[in-house]
């Protein structure tokens, strides 16, 4: 599986994802600068975590209009897998590739801690490494992770099986229906707030995030 990681000014988890991808695929991802207008030919595009453009204006809002995003949208529409983690998820919602918005956490504070997630389906290119209904533990680290969408959108997401992950037990940010991650209509674009890349090594304190990268590798290689 070939992958590319997009680097915006203010991105800060590019190293975490690059290490996780290399660990899972044996291949380092290409790093693509935000000012580029084209992407290398890859099987997976990752928009990593961080504070693109300082998250000024609104998290992800400026990055969604960066030159490279035209190419990301085109690739996504052509069926290339796109994974947005944390700030990447925010960028995907701001760019219209995913529905809904990420509001500031309901408690108003940044939150960095392990959370429990339920994997809603194993029938996607992202989650083949998990069992449906499995609970995994991965960390979160965000200030704006409170997912919100209107009732109609939520009904459609639920009906089409497009909720990827839900928080189990404690909801760490007030997210509606405990939603932690969602897919696009073709389930080739995934956005999630938690950081599976930071749970891929026993020294991280857990390896539950590996399943995502193993699943992707199996599906896309």
């Amino acid at each position, binding site marked *: 599986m070939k992958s590319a990681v997009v680097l915006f000014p203010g991105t800060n988890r590019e190293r*975490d994802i690059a290490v996780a991808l290399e660990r899972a695929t044996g291949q380092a991802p290409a790093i693509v600068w935000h000012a580029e207008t084209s992407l290398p030919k890859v099987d997976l595009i990752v928009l990593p975590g961080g*504070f693109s453009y300082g998250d000024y204006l609104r998290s992800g809002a400026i990055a969604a209009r960066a030159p490279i995003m035209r190419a990301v949208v085109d690739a996504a529409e052509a069926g290339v897998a796109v994974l947005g983690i944390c700030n990447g998820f925010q960028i995907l919602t701001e760019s219209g590739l995913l529905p809904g918005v990420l509001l500031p956490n309901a408690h108003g*504070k940044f939150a960095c801690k392990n959370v429990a997630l339920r994997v809603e389906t194993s029938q996607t290119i992202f989650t083949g490494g998990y069992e449906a209904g499995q609970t995994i533990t991965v960390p979160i680290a965000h200030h704006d992770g409170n997912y919100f969408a209107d009732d109609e959108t939520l009904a459609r997401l639920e009906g089409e099986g497009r909720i990827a992950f839900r928080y189990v037990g404690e909801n760490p940010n007030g997210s509606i229906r405990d939603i932690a991650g969602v897919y696009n209509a073709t389930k080739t674009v995934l956005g999630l707030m938690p950081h599976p890349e930071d749970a891929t090594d026993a020294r991280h304190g857990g390896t539950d995030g590996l399943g995502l990268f193993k699943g992707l590798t199996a599906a896309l290689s």
Partner: protein
Amino acid sequence: MQITPAIVAEHGLKPDEYQRIIRHIGREPNLVELGIFSVMWSEHCSYKSSRRHLRKLPTKAPWVIKGPGENAGVVDIGDGMAAIFKMESHNHPSFIEPYQGAATGVGGILRDVFTMGARPIANLNALRFGAPDHPKTRHLVSGVVAGIGGYGNCVGVPTVAGECSFHPAYNGNILVNAMTVGIARADRIFYAAAAGIGNPVVYVGSKTGRDGIHGATMASAEFGDDSDEKRPTVQVGDPFTEKLLIEACLEIMAEDAVVAIQDMGAAGLTSSSCEMASKGGVGIELDLDKVPCRETGMTAYEIMLSESQERMLMVLRQGREHIADRIFKKWGLDVAVIGRITDTGRVVIKKDGRIEADMPVGPLADDAPQYDRPYVPTPPRKTLSARDVPAADIKDALLRLLGSPDLASKRWIWEQYDHLVRGDTVQRPGGDAAVVRIEGSKKGLAATSDCTPRYCFADPFSGGVQAVAEAYRNLSAVGARPLAITDCLNFGSPERPEIMGQFVGCIEGMALACATLNFPVVSGNVSLYNETNGQAVLPTPQIGAIGLLDDIDRMATAALKTEGDVLFLIGKTKGELGASLYLREICGREDGAPPEYDLAAERRNGEFVRRLIASGRVKTCHDVSDGGLLVALAEMALAGGIGAKIDPIWDSSMPAMPPQAFLFGEDQARYVVAVSSKDAKKIEAEAPEGVVLARLGRVGGHGLTLAGFGTISLADMRARHEGWMPALMEKG
């Protein structure tokens, strides 16, 4: 403009200091020159009250690459790599404007580290607030924590450890100390000494605005009732620009272009340019018309004294300006050649074709006045006998201690910090020391910040020893070999002999501990005048320390892990309750001498613990400090989610003592370790001469069971321990 005595006084300069300026430059200074002298000679920049005492601190060891005097200290960590680290205070601004004060404190210390060529890999902090029920405390805690998080989270450097305590002595002056640890190739470290006559002086980063003018002067005076009016001297941070600046600086440092580099911190362009010239023994000429400014009409005085954040000054090799141009523009940052290095030994400032300042560099940076302030040692306190301290119900005392301000869990704070970014955090906050893996290796850097101000107040010398010893212990408890320390010395006004007495006592205590433990000071910062209307903070010589783990898979954590493991107490217990938390929280008293130190035992016990961890047989270790043995055991049980059964060893302890003295005494140089039953006998036999080892009991159960006192459940302990801080911060 005529310089009047009133203008001199407004600049925080004493009349004799002004005469000294006139002698140095051979005439009356103009306002720009006076402004430059005032910041360079401020306590904050010149260390004029502290320098003669700082010299007492040991600064050398075979692994020290660069000690104090640069932006940060540098130590060798093997494999061609170096760790670069420093701690710095941002107390005054954080009290006035907690969010921005704390945020810019983080920004400043990050720049001190990456200016030397290091990639920052960990942030730490140490926070001291006033009484929890003081009307300002909650506002200050919430602002400071949000500010540290807001900055550190955005720049993508994990905030991995720290400490936080409360005392009414900080009601009018909180302490916000921030530390950064970075790593660099040992052969690619950048220093501040300018060189190469004719080389360009290049300004990079944010534009200069009118913010923070006279911040260094503010940090060199005590507060009165009007401290809120000083808000305009606090700078505003932009962590996004800092992140870009880190990447751009590290990128240009990989090219053969940078001769010298210095961040614009306190006293901004003034101190960065004068220090670079002074360290290089050269002159510098700046054209302020070239400085990127945020607003129009800024005067030379304002540009030179602005403390706008996220700015750096570099001296480049001639002809490499285009490299800086390419890299900094790529990152969207301002870059401008604003001057040249000269051979005149003078700092010359031009603006609008006029010479605004022209002075010799030497006196500015090196010939600041030095003071031998009079001091009176703190009178010694009486050592308390454990029998003079009232007994309390042990279970109730433990629960109260676990829910007391200084011992309660600080999860509410560190969950607001991204402590995981970069994916190398292998020991998270909440333990004795955090551990961050050294990129791409099996090695880890451990880091901790420590000080016990109530001991320093009771006995500055002993408190100074203890602060260093506790840092040594916290590193040893995770299995790391202590390497070196950075210090942040927070005291009241040095113009009061009793405060100078505290300062001198703490430094001399630290010096003894550093020398005995082979644990040198490689960088540091002094923050004086932390007082309001004559009420000084507790003497707080904050220690930041790093240690090295050769193999992160042979590391200990405080969490109890396996039922049936045998618990050992390492170190001798005399039942020291003087200046203890038991005395303060349970008996409502703060008297008595602090626990005695025994540096030979510190070293012996620390080495033994590290050997056990390195052998792979000890995975669980915790140092015994605030609150004593029973609090340490409770923290281990809570961290592991499993209890322990403790034998009544206080009955047979020598010398005999009441149970509360054994269980809550804060005797030094002690650790608790858990080992498997099969290793227990062997480990007992291995204890070297002089290491006192006592079996405490076994791991297991859902609480701490104390022979004769019953069981205290994990749930009850957790409720108190975790409940205090959210209850304080989230109540209506």
